[in-house]
């Protein structure tokens, strides 16, 4: 589940040491929360300390979040916000330890879906349905991934979708255009291969980049309800799940990927899937909205040129909406014993003003519609446009299914790429679900 949003790693050491320093103070923050039993929502007088973990550990993001917290503290003098900015992978590790020890930060990043469900079932996450009702209605449908049994537990602040990132230069040189249907796409792949260009790269060693293909085929083949209910109930009995597996098999058999893709990693190094696209060794890669940032990191910090984006093509005869998308994002969530002031601050983080600043700095793809027009990067802006026009954004299946069933599905997808029977995807996923 290492779906990384690769950030510049230079400040890792700093991040860790800061985290350790602050961890020593972490215990004190809980004392502050105990005194606030009344739902005073930011207007109370009692001194409250809120701990906040986020992963923007490099500027401009780190400075921006500090500024946001300072502004809030100026408005609410009784609230003190203690920030820990960590590298993404460090944060995930520390959060896992925090979940297990029960000593959690008041505000943390939550990826939603089955992972959230596990946290909710363990009594770790705060129900914010009533406290943040206004913000929830502003964000709209995006919040669905952070709801369990009709209650809301997180406020998504950045949401992206998965699609094909392609090298416009290579595609133009070979006379191919972004395809609308799979027939067009197969034709484009054939043309590229005939010209000696490897059409696509994929980091199958990490499993999830490859599994995204299955998610999308299932989203195109299955009706929306079938997908939503199937993932929620672990019910994959509808034939469309197997049809999607067969589509995947046909795609694999067309051999569109870089040599050695089963041993290729997603994001690390020049011969990773992202590295191959950044170096122009392949013409395209299907990845999430973080791809330009990852390639920039692999390209000595300079943005890779001639990169654009197109959505997953329509599948003929599928019951799914061709405009639906696989995606996901990050939300702010509060630990179960966090003070109500923490929720109030989370709402401030989703306010028009904070989200516009967030978009202008290209820190992510804002969920507050008021900030949609403020994304600076053109490729990301087009992706945002697609996301906002999409009738339905399905959370990554593995996140939606939870770590156990999600990883089982991903592993089964890789097996199909290595030659296994497509029907094993449904069978293996269902078998893992029996452990739930």
């Amino acid at each position, binding site marked *: 589940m290492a779906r990384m949003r690769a950030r510049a790693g230079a400040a890792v050491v700093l991040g860790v040491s800061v985290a350790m320093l602050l961890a020593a103070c972490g215990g004190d923050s809980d004392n502050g929360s105990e005194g606030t039993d009344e739902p005073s929502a930011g207007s109370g007088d009692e001194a409250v300390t809120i701990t906040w973990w986020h992963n923007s550990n490099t500027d401009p993001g780190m400075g921006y979040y500090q500024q946001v917290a300072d502004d809030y503290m100026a408005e609410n003098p009784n609230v003190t916000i203690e920030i820990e900015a960590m590298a993404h992978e460090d944060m995930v590790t520390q959060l896992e330890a925090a979940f297990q020890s029960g000593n959690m930060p008041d505000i943390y990043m939550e990826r939603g879906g089955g992972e959230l469900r596990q946290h909710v079932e363990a009594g770790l996450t705060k129900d914010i349905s009533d406290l943040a009702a206004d913000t929830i209605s502003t964000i709209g449908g995006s919040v669905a991934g952070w709801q369990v049994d009709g209650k809301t537990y997180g406020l998504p602040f950045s949401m992206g979708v998965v699609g094909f990132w392609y090298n416009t230069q290579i595609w133009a040189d070979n006379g191919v255009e972004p395809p609308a249907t799979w027939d067009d796409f197969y034709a484009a792949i054939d043309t590229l291969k005939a010209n000696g260009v490897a059409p696509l790269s994929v980091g199958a060693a990490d499993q999830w980049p490859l599994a995204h293909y299955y998610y999308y085929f299932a989203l195109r083949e299955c009706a929306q309800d079938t997908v939503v209910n199937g993932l929620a109930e672990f019910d994959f009995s509808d034939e469309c799940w197997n049809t999607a597996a067969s589509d995947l098999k046909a795609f694999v058999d067309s051999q569109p990927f870089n040599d050695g893709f*089963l041993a290729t990693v997603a994001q690390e190094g020049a011969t990773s899937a992202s590295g191959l696209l950044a170096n122009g060794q392949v013409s395209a890669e299907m990845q999430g909205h973080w791809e330009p940032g990852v390639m920039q990191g692999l390209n000595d910090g300079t943005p890779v040129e001639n990169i654009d984006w197109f959505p997953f093509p329509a599948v003929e005869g599928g019951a799914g909406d061709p405009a639906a998308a696989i995606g996901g994002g990050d939300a702010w969530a509060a630990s179960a014993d966090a003070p109500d002031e923490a929720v109030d601050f989370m709402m401030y983080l989703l306010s028009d003003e904070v989200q516009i600043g967030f978009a202008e700095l290209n820190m992510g793809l804002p969920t507050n519609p008021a900030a949609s027009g403020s994304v600076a990067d053109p490729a990301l802006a087009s992706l945002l446009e697609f996301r906002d026009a999409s009738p339905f954004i399905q959370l990554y299946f593995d996140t939606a299914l939870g770590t156990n069933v999600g990883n089982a599905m991903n592993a089964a997808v890789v097996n199909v790429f290595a030659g296994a029977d497509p029907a094993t995807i449904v069978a293996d996923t269902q078998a893992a679900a029996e452990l739930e």
Partner: protein
Amino acid sequence: MADEATARRGGTASTATPNPTEAAGSTQVLPAAPARAGRRGTRPGLRKGLEIAFFVTPALVVFLGFVVWPVVKAIQYSLYNWRGYGPMVDFVGLKNFTYVLGNTVFQGALSHNLIIMVLSIAIQLPLGLGIALLLNRKIRGRNLLRTLVFVPWVLSEVVTGVIWRQMLQADYGLLDTLLGSIGIPTPQQGFLGDTSYALAAVMVVLTWKYLGLAIVLFLAGLAGVPEELNEAAQIDGASWWQIQRRVTIPLLGPTVRTWIFLSMIGSIQVFDMVWILTGGGPAESTNTMATFLYSWGVDRNLIGVASAASVILFVIALVFALTYQRLVLRRDAIDYVPRKARKAATR
């Protein structure tokens, strides 16, 4: 992670157990011994007992805290359906064990462990013995050659894994480039990405890494073979080959048997090299029991299932270790008397 640590300690536990029990036994025996001293009574015995307790306690505490306690906890976890957070309440009995034993990925992992074990011994024993015998002759640059042979074993596992993964990469790797330039076709997925080659590729790297240890151990054993025996055999007209076969190798027996023991336990527990080279993939074709319990415990958060796998791994390692010690290593004990001889003596 904890499960892996527990499992790994399984091997050491079996070898480490005799020491504490021996020590504990002697504390009980000693006070009784000086009864005849009368006047001075139990004082020297008590003192000795305290002394032993003083020196043994730290090791015992570490052993109990970091070996016995994790093993006990792993057994406890293995009986629950638990994800690592929240209260551990869902007691499932032996369900995790039946799941693990019935899981095809685990069965595959176990068979990979056994393949690695058999191949390690089958390849490294003759190869290591041969090289050790050659390096034992008086040749120019012998010390340099001995050092070079040992270098791979000195490299850290992670470094070795990363280097070999780079070399084995499809298209861009050193091996593919070399073979391609002389016209030998390589698998399209690369050696680590092809399910039919991946385990063999891992085996090659493991052999490269651990052959040095075998050679060094055998050389140490060869140093203990008295020169006079060689000379005596030479005088009797034995050829070099006959001397090695009839004199040197039989005398190397204890070293070889100890090496086989180390190699066996290492093969059952192998994790880091496989994890770095392939992560257990592609399509589960190189999983070992240790990578299985890591992916099920850490990636899938099924602490109960992973603990059950770790307990199974622990038991397998223990059974192998004890059986081997009882059947094979016992011969090397100083007071060992073969069964036939014992019978003859009593008759």
